[in-house]
């Protein structure tokens, strides 16, 4: 049973990481949202599996929150925003797809080099998961800095949060408070960014951030 628990947890964490990479190479905004929804689903599954393995019922709640918010509510809302704004659905990259992927691979290597020796003493179950979670966080950050569009930046931010949840559920005895706060912060961020989009849209007819930068360059 221990072997199976380990393998399944690993599979789910690995899938999360795979989805992070998938987020990096999408060329269409709607595809990004879809991949993000899949990642949310995987996170929910990972949380549920941990709940089952650790016999910690509160993690089912975490799984439900993750599923509800990240797989259903946020992707639907983002799709609606994209449709209502009618923004063109291509993604403008600051760094090309291939270099981004290479940078992502390098980041994963860095996290594995970093975490595996540090967590050597801890339970076998958690240490690879922590490495993968850190990689997901860093890939989320990478997505935020290599994509110009505000929507992709929001998705990068929330993918970063997915990494945090992955780490939180992987460690035994993490109280529910943490996950709740993470989930709510995602929601808050989502609301803020939603308002933000409309504001930008109203002002500039676009979601490209460089319009904002032009405004600031002009000074107060």
């Amino acid at each position, binding site marked *: 049973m221990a072997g199976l628990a380990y393998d399944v947890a690993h599979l789910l964490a690995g899938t999360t990481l795979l989805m992070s990479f998938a987020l990096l190479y999408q060329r269409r905004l709607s595809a990004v949202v879809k991949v993000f929804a899949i990642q949310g689903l995987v996170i929910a599954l990972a949380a549920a599996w941990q709940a089952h393995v650790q016999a910690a019922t509160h993690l089912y709640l975490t799984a439900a929150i993750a599923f509800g918010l990240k797989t259903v509510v946020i992707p639907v809302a983002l799709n609606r925003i994209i449709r209502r704004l009618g923004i063109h659905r291509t993604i403008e990259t*600051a760094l090309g797809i291939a270099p981004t992927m290479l940078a992502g691979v390098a*980041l994963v290597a*860095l*996290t594995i*080099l*970093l975490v595996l*020796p540090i967590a050597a003493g801890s339970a076998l179950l958690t240490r690879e998961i922590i490495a993968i979670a850190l990689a997901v966080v*860093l890939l989320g*950050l*990478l997505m*935020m*800095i290599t994509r*110009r569009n505000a929507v992709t930046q929001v998705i990068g931010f929330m993918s970063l949060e997915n990494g945090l949840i992955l780490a939180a559920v992987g460690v035994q005895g993490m109280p529910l408070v943490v996950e709740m706060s993470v989930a709510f912060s995602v929601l808050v961020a989502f609301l803020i960014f939603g308002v933000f989009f409309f504001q930008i849209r109203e002002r500039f007819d676009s979601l490209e*951030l*460089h319009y*904002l*930068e032009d405004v*600031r*360059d002009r000074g107060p």
Partner: protein
Amino acid sequence: MLTGLALADLGFLVLAGLGLAAIRLGARATAIVCLGSTILCAANAAMALAALWTPAAEQLRLPIGFALGWTVLALDPLSAYFLLVVNLVGAIVSLYAVAHEHGEAQPARRLVPFQLFLFGLNLVPLAADAFSFLVAWEFMSLASWALILARPDDPAARRAAQIYLVMAVAGALALLVAFGLMAGGLDRYDFAALRAQRAGSLVVFVLVLFGAGSKAGLVPLHAWLPLAHPAAPSHVSALMSGAMTKIALYAVIRLVFDLNGQPAWWWGGILLVLGAGTALVGVLFALIERDMKTALAWSTIENIGIIAGALGLSLAFAGSGLAALAGLALTAALVHALNHALFKSLSFMGAGAVLHATGSRDLEQLGGLGRVMPQTGWVFLVAALALAALPPLNGFAGEWLLFQALIGGIALPSPMLKFILPVVAGAFALTAALAAAAACRLYGIAFLGRPRSPAAAAAHEVAPAMRLAMAVAAGLCLLFGLFPAAVAGLAGPAVVQMLGPPAAPVVALPFASLVAGNTAYVATALALAGLALAAIVLMAAGRLSPMPARRAPAWDCGFPDIRPATQYTAASLTQPLRRVFGRTAFVARESVAMPEPGDMAPARHTLAVADRLWQGIYLRIDQGIELVATQAARLQQLTIRGHLMLMFAALVILLAAVVVSR
């Protein structure tokens, strides 16, 4: 004794409070406050003298404190010696201030900070823990900063005050870090604990040199001094130059000799070379500066260089195990510190009297003052002779001791130092000669010849209290010059305290002479011989000459021109020296603008002198800060993505550093 000194020090705070009240009451009350600080300083000096007479270490642990809840005060021979220096100058200068303050506008700007300044100056030598030391140090810095700003309308004073403040803050920061490093893991900051630690750290030494050296005016940290000393009122310049720079040297001795532990011999080499450079730079600028007080400020830098050189030599000897020679060099430093404090404050008071009488500090506007203010002229002559380090005045004794120590330097084991010593000795010898030229120029241009301006011709003698203060200072200069052994004897306990009994200075009391090795300096005999020789020459000239004496006009090179502009000017007197050193020492540019033939306009000779160190170091630092600030301001203009990228890069670099470092 310590209790008395501490109480007297508190008296300055009371006087500062009284000063606030006295300003309302008018000139008489301010004079009484100044007189009060004279009495307090004199009492302090007497107590310091008594403490030197029967050397003992006293300690007082007060339950009030700045940061730790307690304050440790201590009195040992070293602090007693420097208290004597500070209070001798303080008493004389306060007496001078009695009259100097009279009729000046806005007395509040000087009266209160002056008492606070004296408080700080007295507290630094007494402080025996790092906190009270630094607080007293800052008290001293800030009070003198306020005094430099006594005339805030003057843009030069504002600039000087700003530069001074920046350097004072940087210096205090260096001292703070030095104390922290010395304390190490201890959380005890009293000097006894630091002494027991005996860190012996080079970093501490460098920090102390920076912190205290910037206060003392050690080149290249001297930039504030030639600006600030002239900007302050004259009695304050006297106190800053005479007392505050000495307190800075006290900090060097206390921290390097006493607290930091056994130094390596080559640290002394660093200080020695720095001192020689300081002396040379100081005297060269003193030679060409036309502002009287600025020239005196440069001369202060020169003397600080001499004292610092002696301290460095002492460190080198002590590090090489030559205790007697180390004692000789340290005695030289201490003796010269006291003597310089006296004659430099006398010179500044003299310059203040000239400024008071003529309204000008510019040498090119002065001249012939010896006839209209004869008493000031005589005391300034004493000061000039001491500045020139001529025996039997007190400027000579310390330099003589230094040269004896330099000659004794052949005993040093290190070939490196043996190589440096002749060069340094040459630099000091050059300094001494140039200092004589600078003193001669100061006195000659201002007090001899004919007045160069109507103001100088209409000058009058200054108030009696000012003359009295100058006369006391001049008398002490003569006294200490004639009995240098007495000064060396006063320094003796401090030298023994720092370097141990074998370092006691050799003093032969019968003729009050100084003895070093096989040589001796007997000032009294020298003075008597000089007087006798002068008398013989005078008599011989009168008796043996076949022609009777006759009075005639001075020879005027065949140009009987009555205009004073035909005299030597301050600039032309030292023009040859300026040309010799112009390229290397200062960026001196001379240009002559000749009018076209037929044009009746006069030809113009312009001279521009700049401090190479100011351009080379300070302006560079300024530009560097400007550059960094502009670049840093660009960070503010980054895009949102740019900010995220910085954060991301920082995170990745830190993570990578963890990976690599493991």
